[in-house]
Every structure is written in structure tokens, then in C-alpha cells.
């Protein structure tokens, strides 16, 4: 019987082993802080209905534009609504749209990308469509889509997803094109594996790592695009508080009440920064080439 060594002692492997494993496990100070911030924001938003002191939609003519006080933690807006309650509640919709857009674009992009990567004929057609989609500015396309579908959470998710899908498709396609040249894929074909089996069992798992990374970036950019759309008045309807809506409303009172824009803006920036930082960390861990550069 041939012996199987548990670990081989070639110099190169020992060296890479030494550096890669612990690096993947301790993720560093920055990403840890980012994770804490993100978890805090998500919890604050999700649990908002259970702890906010005021109904975020309830107007109060007696308490317009109040400064921060014991009653109103961050003061009130021109309609007398509690800014704190509105900002944390607004995070719910913003995050929902961010995560929703990321999941939908990754899922749709994965499906189309697999087909484009595997079938030559489909590839040339699909990629031309994707190229034309990428030629249209994302924001304009999103505004047009919302205008067509009417302002709702679903239509905003769709409007953000459509411009993102081509990027995911390109990514998946390129991974599939590289992986299908691997001998183990050719061996699977020689073993008589059917096309769906080769595609789903051999090729698709190669796309997961880059997709996780891409997903986090899409999530961050979706939250930002949602805010931009709301700010332009092309987002979800104005009764629903989102970070973008709150800032859009606060625009006219910005000079006497900067908090109207500052607090939702701060939440938005922190949230996106945290997600992007975690995305970078995921990439460093999942993509061995980036890891090497660090060593």
C-alpha cells in the first residue's frame, strides 16, 4: 500500500500553508469593526418597530423642527415627526432593497452567465444584449424602470437589479470559460456526464467565491442607488421613510436643521463603508491571488 502523507513537506506548500491559514482566520481590526457596525445597523433597523419612541409616520403640528432633547433624541422634522424614529425605521427599507437587489441580481446573473459560458451560440447573443444594457447609464435606466412600474419596493429592486445583472453575467461567464478548459471537466464529459450535470456540479461551484464578493458590492451599491432614486423622487413612495426619502425631504430645511440630512447620511455612509470593507475581506480570503500580494 502506498502511504498517504497527511501533509507534504515541499518547501512551497509549507510556506503557503504557514501564511494563508492564519490570515484567513484572523481577519484584522478594520473588518472586525466593520462587522460590528453592520450588525448594529441591521439590528437597529430590523428591531425598530419594537423600540422606537414615536410612530415614524405620525405628524405633530405642535413639535415642528424641535432641537434634540430628552423627548426627541435627534429632534423633529418640519412635520413634527421624530427624526430618530424615522432614521432607524428608514434603514429597514434601505437594507431590504440592498439585500433584495443583491440576491436577485446574483441569482439571475448566475443563471444567464452559466448559459452564456457554456453554449457558444447563446454566448454571442446574450453578451451583445448585456453589452447594450451596460451602455445605458445605470441611474437613467433605473429611473426609467421605476417610472414604468410605479414607485414600490419591488419596482425599485427590479430597477437596481437590471443594470447590475450584466456585471454578474460577465463575471460568471469568465469563470465558466476558464473552468471548462480544466481537465477534470473534460474527464467528466468523457465519463458520459450529461450537460446539466457538468454545468451544475462541476462548473457552477467555481463561481460561488467570486459571486459572494460581487454580491456584497452590489448590496452596497444598491443601498446607495436606492437613496439616489429616492432623493430624486424616483424611488419608493414618499410616505415610506427610507434614508434617501428622509434626506430628500430635509433638503429644503437643510440650513436651519442640518440633522435632517446628517443622520440618515451618516447611517448610509457607515453602512456602505462596512459592507464594502467586509466585501474586500471576503475577496482577500477567497481569492488566493490577492492573498499572495499581501505576503
Amino acid at each position, binding site marked *: 500500500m*502506498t502511504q*498517504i*502523507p497527511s501533509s507534504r513537506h515541499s*518547501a512551497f506548500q509549507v510556506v503557503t500553508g*504557514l501564511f494563508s491559514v492564519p490570515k484567513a482566520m484572523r481577519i484584522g481590526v478594520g473588518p472586525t469593526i466593520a462587522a460590528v457596525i453592520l450588525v448594529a445597523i441591521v439590528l437597529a433597523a430590523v428591531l425598530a418597530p419594537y423600540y422606537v419612541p414615536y410612530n415614524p409616520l405620525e405628524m405633530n403640528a405642535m413639535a415642528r423642527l424641535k432641537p434634540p432633547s430628552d423627548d426627541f433624541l435627534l429632534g423633529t422634522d418640519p412635520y413634527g415627526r421624530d427624526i430618530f424614529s424615522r432614521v432607524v425605521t428608514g434603514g429597514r427599507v434601505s437594507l431590504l432593497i440592498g439585500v433584495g437587489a443583491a440576491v436577485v441580481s446574483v441569482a439571475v446573473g448566475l443563471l444567464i452567465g452559466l448559459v452564456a459560458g457554456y453554449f457558444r451560440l447563446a454566448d454571442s447573443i446574450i453578451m451583445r444584449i448585456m453589452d447594450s444594457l451596460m451602455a445605458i447609464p445605470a441611474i437613467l435606466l433605473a429611473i426609467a424602470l421605476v417610472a414604468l412600474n410605479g414607485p414600490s419596493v419591488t419596482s425599485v429592486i427590479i430597477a437596481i437589479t437590471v443594470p447590475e445583472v450584466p456585471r454578474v453575467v460577465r463575471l460568471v461567464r469568465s469563470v465558466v470559460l476558464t473552468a471548462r478548459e480544466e481537465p*477534470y471537466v473534460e*474527464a467528466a464529459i468523457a465519463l*458520459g*456526464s450529461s450537460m446539466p450535470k457538468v454545468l451544475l456540479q462541476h462548473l457552477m461551484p467555481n463561481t460561488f467565491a467570486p459571486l459572494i464578493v460581487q454580491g456584497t458590492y452590489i448590496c452596497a451599491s444598491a443601498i446607495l442607488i436606492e437613496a439616489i432614486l429616492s432623493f430624486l423622487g424616483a424611488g419608493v413612495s414618499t410616505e415610506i421613510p427610507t434614508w434617501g426619502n428622509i434626506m430628500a425631504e430635509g433638503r429644503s430645511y437643510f440650513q436651519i436643521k442640518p440633522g435632517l440630512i446628517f443622520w440618515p447620511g451618516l447611517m448610509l455612509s457607515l453602512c456602505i463603508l462596512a459592507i464594502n470593507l467586509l466585501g474586500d475581506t471576503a475577496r482577500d480570503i477567497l481569492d488566493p491571488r490577492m492573498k499572495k500580494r499581501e505576503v
Partner: protein
Amino acid sequence: MEFKSKDFTDAKRVLKIRGLTVGLAGRPKADPVLRGIDLDIRAGETHCLVGESGSGKSVTSLTAMGLLPKDALEIQGGSIDLEGIEITQAKPAQMRALRARRIAMIFQEPMTALNPVLRVGEQIEEVLNMHSDLSRAEAKARTIDMMEQVHLPDVERIYAAFPHQLSGGQRQRIMIAMALILDPDLLIADEPTTALDVTTQLQILKLISEMQERHGTAVLFITHDMGVVAEIADTVSVMQKGRIVESAPIRQLLTAPKEDYTRKLLQAVPNLDPRAPRAPAEARDVITVDGLEMTYGGGGFFRASQGVRAAQDVNFTIQPGRTLGIVGESGSGKSTVARAIMRLIDPTAGKVTVAGTEIAQLSRRQLQPHRKHFQIVFQDPYRSLNPRWTVARSLCEGPINFGTSRADAMEHAAELMELVDLPRDALDRYPHQFSGGQRQRIAIARAVAMKPDLLVADEAVSALDVSVQAQVLDLLDDVQEKFGIAMLFITHDLRVAAQICDEVLVMQKGVVVEHGLAGEVLAAPRHDYTRNLIEAAPGRHWDFANFRALDRTPPVTGATL
């Protein structure tokens, strides 16, 4: 055969390594990578460092160049004395001055060692600009002179060429010119011919020894190929697991090796003496290839282009239990033939009949039920198994595709593991937990699981160390005998072909130039190309396994070096 036999005892000692120990940086307790290396090289001497992968050959050369990867490996003891300069203590600035002037290096893959966006002439000149104060014109004249010395044709044109416009051999000549232009005392050559075809390899080996004679350079030559060692070495050191196990003049090492490891290593080297062909079976042919043709590209939409004719008019048959070898250099079309027969690519024309069915013209879907009759083993054992799958899953994939139940397939997989001499309980492990040779065994088991009539081995042992190579060849032989499989063996290595093939087919530029029994083709080649190939095979007159010259040397004369 003639060995080099010059005596170097009076020559000046260029490099003296004593007790060199290299270990993992920051981990003094871990096993060292080099354990006390002693090495001497004298002016004009070629010292070969041989050993299997992971033995520490390259680490030794990198240490001598002062190029150990920082933060990963560090010198833990010993000394490296390059004509009075202690390299282990040298500062980075000192080392930079030493490199190129006193000590130079050439690498295995000249394409990656050259800068792809600079003209090669400028790259050679840059060495002069950095290390000397010649004027531009003088530097250029010196560069052109050096390029002529390494026998590059049409020097003015090549001076202005980019690396991708040159052949592999020309690129390696550029590397040699770059390494030798400042006339260093020591040249370190790390597997410089491994990526080259055998005829190009011969030219490069000749060039290195010519340059060595002209400049009196000491050469430290790192290789895994015993044939190359036999051709060029004055003295040899055999390395194993970070130690030098034996160091001796070439003749002494090849005729009377002292250490067991050296013996084992030499005995694993296949010799060029072809095997006796097995009696042709009475059974009908497993595979008949008739007029197979493969053209890549061509027939453009606006402008009809010729396309690349990778294989033309290939005809052969193989009977059960026999092996046909296809040999040739890179670009000869041998792999194209293998892939066309496996229908991994669709042949442009011709017939391929396997187990009674014509498969060349079937659609992918029609082909599916016939796939089990022919299987393939690839060259690279690190890429031919899905890294995310356990061995069991890989072994069961094929049988399950053809309707075997999972339980039966698992049982069969366990039997296969024993057949290829691996423990049953290794079924649950992943490919990265195995060595290259073990993975190749698994790949063979996966192919055999289909009970094929034909096994295509596409350079299946080329990526393996010679002792592992011998084991895998034995395994293929066993499998063939046990199941009466016909085998198509693609290789660039004539030694391997001589050991395993009954018949040999020689290809050049997509055309079959010679086809016959292995004994006849290798002993009495009729075509010039075959003759060139055999002449270029390094160490072809020596029977390494028996420590003596081959009785029956191929009648072609003069492997001149």
C-alpha cells in the same frame, strides 16, 4: 558512451558551500528545507544537481543567488563562499552588484523570465546599462556581439523583437546571452531545457557547453533528467529531502553508485531499448482510425482563411491488449489526435471506429451511450480531478452515469482503489490530500471504472518524477494485462515510448511520418525526423538501470556534444 572526464583538481574553486542549512523563516524548530549542504564548483566545471521534486535543488540555487523568498525561508547556518565573498552575510546592495557580474542564472520558462513588453535586445542591454558604464553605442555593439555568440539568426531583427515573437529555443538563447554578457564566474541553470522540445534541448545544451568553454564559466546545472546529466555533467550531486546523498564524478556515479537512493533513482530511468512487441491478438481491432483530419479555424466569413491543419490523414488500428504510442514534439498534433478520438473536439474529417461503432460523426447526444468504451488519462494530475469532490464521488461519477446504483458503484470504487494500490479508506479524502503520483493512480482508476475497451493516455506520466513515473507505467501495464485494454499512449519522451509501446507512430507538424513496430522504428528509423528525434534524446547510449552502456545502441551515429 563518452563521458566528460576532465580533471578539475587544479582549477580555481569558484563556489564553495559548507554546511548550508535553510529553514522556514521564524520557525527554527521546524524541519529544515536544506540540511547541511556541501558543494564545490571549480572554474570550467559543470556540476549537475539532480533529485526529485521537493528535494531542495532549487532552494540551493536560490540561496546561492541570494534570492530566497523573504519572510518564508531563511539561512539558518553554513556558508556560501563565492571566490572569497561570503554570500550568506552579503547586504542586498552587495548582492545586486554580484548578480550578473559574478553569478548569473537562467530559468526553466524563458517566456515568464523575460519582460513581455520590452524588446529582447533592450533587455540584454539593460544588464549592461545597470552594471557597467559603457556608452549606448558600445552597449548595443556588445549586445549584438553576444547575440551572435549564442547563434541567434538574423540578429538585427531579433534585437528589435518582443519575446512572444520568438520560439522557445530562441528565448532561452536570449536568456543565456543576458546571463553571460558580463562574463560571470558562475552560471546557475535551473532546469533550463525542461520546457523545450528534445531537438531544441540538444541545441541549448550544446550552446551552454560552448559558452562555458569559451568563457571558462563554472556551471551549476539543476535538472531531474538523468539523460541530460549523462550528456553534460563533469560531476554530479544527488539530492534527496534537503540532503546531498551522493556526490561523484559522472562516470563513477553512473557505473558504480554507492548509495541506495542513487541506485533507486537510476533504476527508474527507462532506457531507449524498445520492449519486445507482444504477439498480435486474434481478436478484432478495438479502434480503427481512418483518414482522421483536424483543422482549426479557417473558412472566415469575409476572407476565406486556410486554418491550421493540426492533423492530416491519420490512420491506425489497435488490437486488444496492445499499446500504440504517438510520439512527436510540441505542435506535432499528437494531442489533437487523442482529443479528436475522445471527441473532446470534433474532427473535421475521417472515421474513428471504437468497439464497432463509428463515433467521429455522431452528435454529442448520440455519442453519450458509447462514451464508456473509451476513456482518457490526462497529463496534469493536479487538475484532472475535481478539487471539490471526494475521491469516491469522482470514481462513482462514470458508472452512475451509465445506470449503476450508487451502492454498487461505491463497492466497485473500493475495489478499484485496491487495484491501483491505494487504501480503501482514502475514498473519503479530497484530491489535495494526495501526491501527484497518487492522483494519477486515482485518475487511472476513474478511467478503468468504466471498463473501457480503449484507454487514451495523453502524456500521462510526463509530469511525474522518474521513480513515480516507473510505478505508474507498471500500473498501466498491469491494468492492460488484467482487462485486455487497448492503449493509445501519447508522449514526447522516446524512453517512455520504448518501454511501453508495441507500435509507434511518429508525427511531425500534423503529419504521420513513420509508423511501425516500436523495435523497428526506434532501432532503424527510416525518416529523417525520427532519426533527429532519437539522436537528440540525451543519454541515449546509456542503460541507466543496469549501470552500463546499452548493448544495442541505435545505429544512428553521433549524438555530438
